[in-house]
């Protein structure tokens, strides 16, 4: 009996210790701001969106506290996570601005309790895994800055929204997500703190593939290029750089994130352009195309209809650079228009055809080149439009020109649709979530984000979307599962 009691007591103690080591995290925010600035700005403000602060500084700190608490509620660590925060005059002008930046300020390798030796970990995670503050354990003194030993350093633009710095587009400090035309600070800070906690390649360059001091980051073993079958851990610098632009081939293999995919991501769809009809002849079939950066996406606005080819130039081309004549507009009404590239911008063409009543537009390239999209911007465009290859455009035109004397115009139909492709939107064929690997490499693009094909949108995509929530875990998001894959 005594033995049993002792055993139970031992189990209870062990349970206490386990619980103690798995306690909810605490996040400590320390301001670097001088008097009167940033968190100390005394400018009176009205409470907004659930933020009760009555000065600008109070509201800023309230958002920090709110976001930090969201993270703290999801993470376990018996070591306080420390964040140094400041409001500074970051680069900006009337039309663009650096909103802020954040990241791990200290990283550790081969620390006591490290699961993977010879691997860089962000300090907040290293502390959690080690069960102690490593800076304290090693007696690491501050460097005089006051924030030398913090886990995460952040800074946001103190001038945002003021004259000359995205005037009128300041940070929305409400907690309800109703940012309108302003910058949602909750979402922005939630995203950036995610990077600081470990949602980042950290110390390895995705541009060159090179590693800081030759050591991999904790991410690399979980990044699998599914076209080569190699993880980043197994690659050379050149292979990593190539993998970073191997579009939609770089998957995250962590078990938690993979398990979350079916709960979080929707069914994937593949936008498709099909040409058919009794008159299509050899022009029939699925065609490659590039979507427009304006107007609705095909996924959201599938459309089908009879083809109408515009001819408004003496040389037999159709440019649609001017409003259509009444006769041409009558033919375009309710149909999918085929026009040629050239003479004016894509948005002008599509807008003229929309005004004429067309339900979609195919722009045939005027040069033989690889497929690309249609650039431009016009929020008044409400019909889908795509670019097709010159060779495909020529084939369709040839069928139309092949009209037999006395016979009706060949009927050619066009369907723009997005059928289910059997994949999850934002995952590879094996159901693993994809990392962001655009090709050509966009300036500053980074594999430290989920791919933009993810649907619904995820917090850690490179673009901060208006429809994000503050939920970090399934069924809404994959951020927390990825962090758990790292050891959180």
């Amino acid at each position, binding site marked *: 009996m005594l033995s049993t009691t002792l055993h139970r007591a031992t189990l209870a103690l062990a349970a206490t210790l386990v619980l103690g080591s798995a306690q909810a995290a605490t996040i400590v925010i320390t301001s670097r701001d001088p008097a009167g600035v940033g968190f100390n700005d005394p400018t*009176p403000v009205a409470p907004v969106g659930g933020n009760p602060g009555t000065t600008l500084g109070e509201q800023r700190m309230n958002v920090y506290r709110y976001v930090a608490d969201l993270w703290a509620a999801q993470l376990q660590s018996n070591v306080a996570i420390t964040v140094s925060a400041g409001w500074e005059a970051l680069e900006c002008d009337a039309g663009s601005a650096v*909103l*802020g930046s954040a990241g791990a*300020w200290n990283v550790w390798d081969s*620390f006591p309790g490290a699961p993977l030796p010879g691997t860089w970990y962000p300090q907040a995670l290293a502390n959690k895994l080690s069960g102690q503050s490593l800076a304290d354990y090693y007696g690491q003194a501050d460097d005089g800055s006051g924030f030398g030993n913090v886990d995460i*350093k952040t800074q946001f633009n103190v001038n945002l929204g003021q004259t000359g710095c995205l005037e009128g587009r300041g940070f929305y400090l409400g907690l309800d997500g109703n940012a309108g035309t302003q910058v949602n600070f909750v979402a922005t800070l939630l995203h950036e703190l995610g990077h600081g906690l470990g949602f980042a390649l950290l110390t390895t360059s995705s541009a060159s593939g090179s590693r800081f001091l030759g050591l991999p980051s904790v991410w690399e073993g979980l990044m699998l290029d599914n076209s080569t079958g190699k993880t980043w851990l197994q690659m050379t610098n050149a292979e990593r750089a190539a993998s970073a632009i191997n579009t939609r081939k770089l998957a995250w293999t962590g078990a938690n994130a993979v398990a979350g995919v079916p709960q979080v991501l929707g069914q994937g769809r593949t936008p498709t352009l099909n040409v058919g009809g009794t008159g299509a002849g050899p022009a029939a079939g699925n065609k490659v195309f590039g979507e427009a950066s304006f107007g609705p996406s095909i996924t959201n606005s599938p459309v089908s209809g009879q083809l109408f080819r515009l001819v408004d130039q003496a040389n037999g081309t159709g440019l649609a650079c001017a409003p259509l004549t009444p006769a041409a507009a009558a033919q375009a009404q309710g149909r999918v228009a085929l026009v040629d590239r050239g003479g004016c*911008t894509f948005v002008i063409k599509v807008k003229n055809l929309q005004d004429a009543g067309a339900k979609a537009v195919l722009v045939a390239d005027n040069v033989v080149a690889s497929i690309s999209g249609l*650039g431009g911007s016009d929020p008044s465009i409400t019909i889908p439009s795509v670019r097709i290859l010159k060779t495909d455009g020529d084939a369709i035109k040839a069928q139309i020109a092949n009209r037999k004397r006395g016979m009706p115009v060949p009927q050619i139909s066009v369907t723009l649709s997005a059928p289910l492709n059997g994949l999850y939107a934002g995952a590879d064929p094996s159901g693993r979530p994809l990392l962001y690997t655009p090709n050509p490499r966009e300036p500053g693009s980074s594999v430290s*984000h989920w791919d933009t094909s993810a649907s619904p949108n995820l917090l850690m995509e490179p673009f901060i979307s208006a429809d994000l929530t503050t939920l970090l875990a399934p069924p809404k998001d994959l951020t927390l599962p990825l962090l758990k894959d790292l050891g959180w």
Partner: protein
Amino acid sequence: MNKTPTLPAAALLLAVLALPAQAADAAAPADAPAADALRVVVDPDTGKLRAPTAAEIKASDDRAAAARARAAANQGAAARAATAAAATPLVKTYANGARRARLTDAFHSHSVAVVRADGTLDTQCYEDHQHAMKALEAARAERPAANAKLETE
């Protein structure tokens, strides 16, 4: 008339002489007129000049301090950027083989916002300071980074 100053009243505080602020009497009630003969306020109710309350003086001093600090911060931005660019990580190795590196801002991800031609705001996260600056340059050249690779005609 004793009246707790409203926000508009605070905004109307005028400093008639640009002298260092006098410390308000901490023991005085917040709404009591302060012995600050160098400043007056326009009373929002009467429209007449009167001596500011201690609370109004404090609010004015706080705003002035904020403005000075903002100006100093602006002047220091370029210097900080240069410092950040020049900074290098500090690495320390400990006796048992553990290593710690104190990184720099260059390793940090940066969020950038750009107003597009149609007035909408694009917000994108870049992997470091250098690429954030390139995104700003692209925006200034009216080439939104998100669409830089797409032809428009």
